[in-house]
């Protein structure tokens, strides 16, 4: 009897093993849905718009996955995703991809709301991240070691920050590394001595933004081009987009979607082209 029970258990396990191998074999990224993968900064926005898209276009399925800008671009090249998302400009080696701008995003530098430091110059920010300025006191704040938080390498947000703020300087290895906007924000919200950078659209009242070179990161400052720390939100395809991809991307340029993008705190691509 006991023997019998055990053999049943084994049989069930065998079937599960077999099924999972089978399922893993069949599931291609393209079967059924349209896969959009890449930047975790772009992901929430596209997810939101994709839901509307699916509600309005019956039968169409859009899968949005966050894996980082570089990974998204690579997925588009390899065909693992139909569309890649990137939150930084394409690099020279990536220029042969089809580039589709959906919005312009500002990167806000954030600190704890109780931090008296409200403004920084770009060089100061660079020196903080290069660990040349180590204490808030050096910036006119309360004494305390600066806990600076950066994103993981390969992140579009980090790429833009590196390019615009750091230039040739390296982000110090002493920095805390986090791989999502949410955790950066949660950490800064809980630490009076922390500083971090996240997409302007993701700023909430738990954290305070810092003005950079005397420009407060507002919607208008971004549109007018005064705020220096901005980067594009891109969708990319390998070669000309097919009809399904084209339909989805065009949808994002419709006024209704552009209005949503603006509501979410980003600068719609149409606005950018107007200015």
């Amino acid at each position: 009897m006991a023997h019998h029970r055990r053999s049943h258990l084994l049989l069930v396990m065998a079937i599960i093993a077999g099924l999972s191998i089978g399922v893993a074999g069949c599931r291609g990224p393209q079967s059924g849905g349209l896969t959009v993968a890449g930047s975790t900064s772009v992901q929430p926005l596209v997810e939101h718009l994709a839901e509307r898209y699916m509600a309005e276009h019956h039968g169409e399925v859009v899968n949005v996955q966050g894996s980082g800008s570089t990974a998204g671009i690579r997925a588009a090249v390899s065909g693992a995703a139909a569309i890649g998302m990137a939150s930084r400009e394409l690099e020279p080696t990536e220029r042969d991809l089809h580039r589709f701008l959906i919005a312009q995003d500002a990167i806000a530098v954030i600190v704890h709301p109780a931090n008296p430091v409200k403004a920084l110059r770009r060089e100061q920010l660079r020196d903080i991240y290069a660990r040349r300025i180590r204490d808030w006191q050096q910036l006119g704040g309360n004494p305390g070691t600066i806990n600076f938080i950066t994103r993981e390498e390969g992140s579009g947000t980090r790429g833009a920050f590196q390019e615009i703020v750091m230039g040739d300087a390296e982000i110090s290895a002493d920095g805390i590394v986090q791989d999502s906007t949410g955790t950066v924000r949660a950490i800064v919200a809980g630490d009076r001595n922390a500083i971090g950078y996240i997409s302007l659209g993701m700023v909430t009242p738990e954290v305070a933004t810092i003005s950079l070179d005397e420009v407060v990161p507002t919607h208008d400052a971004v549109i007018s081009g005064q705020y220096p720390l901005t980067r594009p939100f891109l969708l990319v395809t390998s070669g000309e987009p097919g009809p399904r991809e084209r339909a989805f991307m065009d949808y994002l340029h419709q006024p209704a979607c552009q209005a949503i993008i603006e509501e979410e705190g980003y600068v719609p691509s149409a606005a950018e082209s107007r200015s």
Partner: protein
Amino acid sequence: MRLREFVIEKLLFIAALSSLAVLALIAVFVFIEGTPIMLREGLGSFLLGAKWAPTKGSFGILPMIMGSIWVTVGALLIAGPVGVACAVFLVEIAPRQVADVVRPAIQLLAGIPSVVYGFIGIVVLVPFIRETFGGPGLSILSAAIILGVMVLPTVISIAQNALEAVPVEYKQGALALGCTHWQTILLVILPTARTGLITALVLGMGRAVGETMAVIMVVGNAVKLPINPLDPARTLTSNIALEMAYAAGAHREALFATGVVLFVFIMILNALANMRLRRRGSHR
């Protein structure tokens, strides 16, 4: 009937074989991808190099090795005593009704997704550690505590089995010599269950070494050699998970090599656990 048994047996055999094959394939793949760079860079400078700047050609993973060791040992220092104490409580002290409620509750802990642990870590534990002990809060200590809690179910359930396997005759022998219940636990039950308890720790350790998501959230991920538990650090797993998505070329190979190191780490731990189990088996 015979035929049915024959078919079932072969099916089982094939299933067992295919799971083994999948495992072997993964191992071979990781080794093929990871070994060349270790040989090219030199095993010494790969394992003992302190600088990790993969996009600029520096591939030293010592900070990550140390990070993993610190975090894992720390997690065990927490989960070991707490886990064994819980197991003793459940097996020896708690009334039946209490144990019957607590046991499944502890196993439920195992079902909570890592992200949840990580998030609780960021929101509650990290600020607490920063305010109490100083430093950035995101640290080896935070990761060790979170991991310690995460491996508790493993440690507790194996420790429980070990304690339950202690023959009741030993316990009676000690009581009949005038030992109190506590003395009986300390002097007879725990020493007798020792090998099983060590197995619990080793398996818990295996789990701790491999955990990724929650660790990434609270350990700080700074690539530098940690010198005290309040420092941020990066573990082998978090290194792979943070960078694998975009890595290419030598960088990618270096991450696979990190995987090889992790693989060897875990194999050693499992071998230790198996040795323990076998020795205990031969003892009975």
